[in-house]
């Protein structure tokens, strides 16, 4: 890190401090926490794009899988639903999986021709029929168990922090499957394929109510930090607030956010250390060599496809971890919130603006872009207010513009991306 880079980081933190003084410290810490998660997400995409030149625009899907991990790990199991159809659903899924694997096996074993096509199609049809026969009744049984309160299988009831690595594993597993299919295609085809897989994952999480409650959301997820109300009741905390001479309720909410900040910072720093070491190791040099010239790297005996698959899984796993963190911080799982513009393209803006190929750049981009993503609405409102101050306060143009300040986000982010691509294509902290 050069002196200039440190200055950039100081400026980014300074922005959040200013928000603390101008708005409130509660807001500032909320921005900081999500900025830290954004930095992790941006590291994940940087691993794929910056190190290896892999074009993944399915981040939203992997983030959603991370969020789903929080549900299956931390929510207590719904016993009645399990009795109603849990085993049957699992059996159906196993049969579905077995069908697909057998079909792939048969496809590989038989010689091309009519017999192969017919047998594989017949196999798939039978498998599908058995699967639906087991699956459908079980699902409606599970969903009819107290639909207003639960209506799904629930999770394992384990500590919520365990969901973070599980989220990473789930995302890596999904990345393995999609990578096997789509890696090795030209870059824009890979992009289209990853966009597709993200849509499919999000559609599954939205509509498989027996598993995730779908758009009914799972609220009240357990937290790794104490609740504000409980804090306010304890003596030491009341004493602390007294000694600092601050208002108890507000302080408890800031204190909880600070706890989160500590955990998030710990994860971010360990990931950053790992990434820095990886990038500076022979492995990192090999990845960059592959990125620069695949043919030359292959000639040197590197297994490009395998390396790509690994780095794709690694980056997606980081996205999955970040996704689990988002859901933990929110305290609820809302599948409808996984918009590609917010969870994929915004992350790309972060990586490009920060500096692709440089871990520090990606982290800086994550923090800065997140700050502006949140504050553009406020700033846009002020700006439009100032620009239209000469109009009468009830002029329709002025009212419409003030209303639409909320939609300035995408416009601003797009402009930032275009300007950086044009005038500083290597980002704020370029690759070294």
């Amino acid at each position, binding site marked *: 890190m050069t002196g200039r880079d440190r200055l950039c980081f100081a400026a980014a933190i300074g922005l959040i401090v200013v928000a603390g003084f101008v708005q409130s410290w509660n807001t500032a810490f909320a921005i900081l926490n999500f900025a830290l998660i954004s930095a992790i997400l941006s590291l994940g995409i940087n691993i794929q794009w910056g190190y290896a030149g892999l074009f993944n625009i399915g981040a939203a899907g992997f983030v959603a899988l991370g969020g789903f991990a929080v549900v299956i790990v931390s929510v207590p199991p719904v016993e009645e639903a399990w009795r109603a159809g849990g085993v049957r659903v699992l059996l159906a899924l196993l049969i579905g999986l077995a069908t697909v694997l057998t079909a792939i096996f048969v496809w590989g074993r038989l010689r091309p021709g009519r017999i192969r096509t017919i047998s594989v199609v017949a196999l798939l049809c039978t498998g599908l029929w058995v699967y639906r026969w087991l699956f459908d009744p079980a699902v409606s049984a599970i969903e009819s168990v107290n639909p207003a309160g639960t209506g799904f299988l629930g999770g394992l009831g384990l500590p919520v922090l365990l969901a973070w690595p599980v989220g990473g594993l789930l995302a890596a597993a999904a990345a393995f499957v999609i990578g096997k299919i789509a890696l090795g295609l030209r870059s824009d*085809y890979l992009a289209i394929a990853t966009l*597709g897989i993200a849509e499919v994952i999000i559609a599954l999480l939205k509509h498989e109510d027996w598993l995730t409650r779908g758009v009914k959301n799972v609220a009240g997820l357990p937290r790794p930090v104490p609740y504000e109300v409980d804090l306010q009741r304890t003596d030491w905390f009341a004493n602390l607030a007294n000694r600092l001479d601050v208002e108890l309720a507000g302080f408890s909410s800031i204190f909880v956010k600070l706890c989160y900040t500590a955990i998030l910072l710990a994860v971010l720093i360990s990931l950053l250390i790992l990434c820095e070491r990886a990038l500076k190791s022979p492995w990192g040099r090999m990845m960059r060599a592959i990125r620069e010239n695949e043919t030359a790297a292959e000639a040197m005996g590197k297994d490009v496809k395998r390396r790509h698959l690994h780095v794709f899984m690694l980056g997606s796993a980081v996205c999955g971890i970040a996704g689990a963190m988002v859901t933990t911080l929110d305290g609820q799982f809302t599948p409808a919130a996984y918009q590609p513009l917010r969870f994929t393209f915004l992350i790309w803006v972060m990586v490009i603006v920060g500096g692709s190929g440089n871990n520090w750049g990606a982290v800086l981009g994550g923090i800065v872009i997140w700050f502006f993503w949140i504050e553009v609405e406020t700033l846009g409102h002020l700006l439009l207010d100032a620009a239209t101050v000469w109009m009468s306060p009830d002029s329709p143009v002025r009212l419409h513009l003030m209303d639409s300040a909320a939609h300035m986000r*995408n416009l601003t982010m797009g402009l930032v*991306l275009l300007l950086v*691509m044009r005038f500083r294509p290597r980002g704020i902290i370029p690759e070294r």
Partner: protein
Amino acid sequence: MDFLNAAAAFANFVLVPGFSYGSQLALGALGVTLVYAVLRFANFAHGDTMAFGGMTAVFGTWWLQSRGIDLGPLPTTLIALPFSIVATIGLVLLVDRLIYRHYRRVKAPLVTFVIVSFGVMLVVNGLVRLIIGPDQQRFADGERFIVSAREFKSLTGLQEGLAFKTTQGITIVAAVVLMAMLFWFLNRTRTGKSMRAYSDNEDLALLSGINPEKVVALCWIIAGGLTAVAGVLYGLDKIFKPFTYFQLLLPIFAAAVVGGMGNPIGAVAGGYLVAFSEIGITYAFKKVVNHLLPQAWEAQGLLQLLSTEYKFAVSFVMLVIVLLLRPTGLFRGRAF
């Protein structure tokens, strides 16, 4: 066994919607594939440019309606359509001039173009939301049906109705006319041939004196026009909502890739193929089958392969299958 009723139900729920949705996808995919053929990158801003086209048509229609102008049984939007086409072409030409041209000059890698198109996508998306807002707008007027389900029933005496909406008719007619014009232009005119030559072999085309900037501008003009028409027709037939256009990106790309990126005939075939698969796989065939089977064998289930929530999964799966088995697409595009 009742063949006629089955056919009517099938046409009502699969054939007619499939043809109109397929026409919309084909027009969208043609735009994507033309840009790909000439500029050689996948344009992610396409969906939001369609939204822009739709938006201009909505405003045009509102203005005309406020003037009391209409087309009688046809939707007023048809008068606003030329205006919308011009506005969209203006937008894409401006974007090309301000943004893409620079990267052509510095001979940037193709991936840069794709990332830049993300930026354009975000900007156009923001513009549309800023101007018209994120909510849905209805702007179809005039006669709703060419043949309504009830008219069809009383006309033929069948149990099943077959509705044919005006917007569906307009979509199909407009798509067929536009495609015929496009293929005539590409295959018969000198300018069209120069465009294909440039797409096939850039260096040879340059050698024979074809002006690349002219070809690129022409490509944007045609693609912009098609984009506007696709956006307006989709909004007219379904509903105008900025967000849905972003979601259309996936089926449109799927159509273009399935047919073969860069190949206009492929884009048309891909559009209809994706549309019919999407509708056919998510349609519950119970009604159709029950008309065909004797009463005793009546089907109990819905006979639906996949519920409608997963229609985007269909285009994705088609995309994956084609990429795995035949990466250049059914009609040999110019991938690889």
